[in-house]
């Protein structure tokens, strides 16, 4: 039988990969990719605990809400990226230094 620890390790690894992407990359879209990885790692943990520890499906509902929030975040984030690109002609995160153009 597959143990809870293996799921937790996969989740941990995904989280770290997301963190690496977020720190190493300077492109805003790439950073959003890292955020997706981190959110997915968290959602995986919720479902794994829901199966192995608790006796109900609240974990599933939580990961559904995580997916919903990720969708909203991606939509708004990418809209901001596109607007930023229209102003600066770049998606480099270090060029986002002004609060207004």
């Amino acid at each position, binding site marked *: 039988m597959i143990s*809870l620890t293996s799921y937790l*390790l996969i989740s941990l690894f995904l989280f770290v990969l997301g963190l690496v992407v977020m*720190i*190493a990359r*300077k492109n805003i879209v790439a950073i959003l990719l890292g955020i997706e990885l981190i959110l997915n790692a968290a959602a995986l943990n919720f479902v794994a605990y829901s*199966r192995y520890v608790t006796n109900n499906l609240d974990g599933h509902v939580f*990961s559904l809400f995580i997916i919903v929030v990720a969708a*909203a975040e991606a939509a708004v984030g990418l809209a901001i990226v596109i607007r930023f690109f229209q102003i600066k002609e770049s998606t480099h995160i270090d060029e986002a230094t002004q609060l207004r153009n």
Partner: protein
Amino acid sequence: MFLQVLFLLSATLTIGCGIAVAVTRNLMHSCVFLLGTLIGIAGLYATLGADFVAVTQIMVYVGGIVILMLFAVMLTGGKDFVSRAQNLLGLAPSMGNKWTFALSGLVGVVFILTNVKLLMSVASSLPTKEINNELPSTVNEIGHLLVKDHVLAFELSSVLLLGALVGAAIIARPRKQ
């Protein structure tokens, strides 16, 4: 047996594509590898008996978010960023260089070590329940939970989605300067 095979395949897909997301130099390829990771996670959900969550994962991520990401990459230059390695302002290249990767790798290693240490102490004392190998369908129960226990969060998420929709439309709208 079947579950073990599915688990191994999904885990390999998840981790392999996850590493590829982190190391590939091409943003477009990075997005496509993210697709692989997300499908792998859906497979992991399936091994956990979370059929509804698995399908929702594929629906939202593959059908929505990844295509949005691909669109954003395409509308903001795409492949151009790989060739333009160094910016005029002397900033780090947009897909990272060895210094950023070294820094993030260091952070990652420290993070993994501390968490494995934590996990080792927790894993032995985890309360385990009887695991049944039957994986019953979760759709009905999730439906009940969403409109009973979690109804407030459910309604609020609809407001959140509406806000995100309107906000995204307003932000990305072309403006006259």
